[in-house]
């Protein structure tokens, strides 16, 4: 009897996995050293799975005016970073929950280059007051790790949120 229960449990967990596409939380962590060296010298290391490849192509094609700043690279470095980003982009890693939700939220006619302008990210943050976002310790929605304490691991779960001068966030 005990064996039967274990069998049922095992079979159902396999079934659940295939049903949910062996879903993982968050987004896949950053693994590319060139990306880390070049991009994180100015800003947080946004995971490749936070945007679809069409967005990464558009963004990497305009580094001379990267959100108002010159972030131009040598052509070889730019090409290698783009390869990394498009090989690990949101639509290729829909087994990660956040990648799937971001990718699904972007309509086919739009190609956002700001993660903060994707519909899913906008919706997830629409309850947060401008005062908390604009405060010195955060400054903008693009500063993920100011509140998402585990953002650098690719985890954006609610229990790891700690908003400066506010504290933990309860979505309910």
């Amino acid at each position: 009897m005990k064996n039967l229960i274990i069998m049922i449990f095992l079979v159902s967990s396999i079934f659940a996995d295939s049903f949910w596409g062996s879903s993982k939380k968050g987004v896949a962590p950053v693994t590319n050293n060139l990306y880390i060296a070049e991009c994180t010298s100015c800003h947080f290391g946004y995971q490749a799975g936070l945007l679809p490849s069409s967005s990464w192509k558009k963004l990497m094609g305009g580094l001379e005016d990267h959100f108002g700043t010159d972030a131009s690279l040598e052509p070889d470095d730019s090409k290698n970073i783009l390869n990394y980003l498009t090989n690990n982009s949101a639509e290729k890693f829909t087994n990660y929950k956040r990648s799937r939700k971001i990718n699904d939220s972007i309509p086919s006619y739009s190609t956002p280059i700001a993660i903060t302008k994707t519909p899913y990210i906008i919706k997830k943050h629409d309850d947060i007051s401008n005062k908390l976002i604009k405060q010195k310790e955060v400054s903008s929605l693009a500063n993920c790790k100011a509140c998402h304490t585990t953002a650098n691991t690719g985890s954006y779960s609610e229990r790891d949120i700690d908003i400066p001068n506010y504290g933990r966030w309860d979505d309910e």
Partner: protein
Amino acid sequence: MKKIFIFLFMIVSIVNAQELNNKMKQYMQILKNQAQKDNPSFKQFNYERGENIFISEHIGKKGKLISCVSCHSSNLFNNGENIHTTKIIKPLSPLANSTRFTKVKEVKKWLRRNFRDVYNRVGTAQEKGDVITYIINKK
């Protein structure tokens, strides 16, 4: 006697820290040659001109007043902070941060980007040499 040795050692390490590596010296020579070509009366790179390049404010790429100091701070031995992303920038002085001004590719990249961000144009060879001279010698 021991104190003298320590003193001498300190002097030597300061002098060494200021000394650019060979690749960087070659790059400075290329800048110097170009500066002479651009301006026949050019003699050598100048600390004061470099300081002015570094601390003066200009209408930058974003259409707002900005200077090198805006992000790097006026103390090159301290951390700076990227004013757009709040990311910490390690000290710019090679006397405080020995990795600075060691890789020509890095130096070229940041001069290209930062002149565009602050001056909304590329820097001339003379300006680049002047500002490097200021940064590596500033105490």
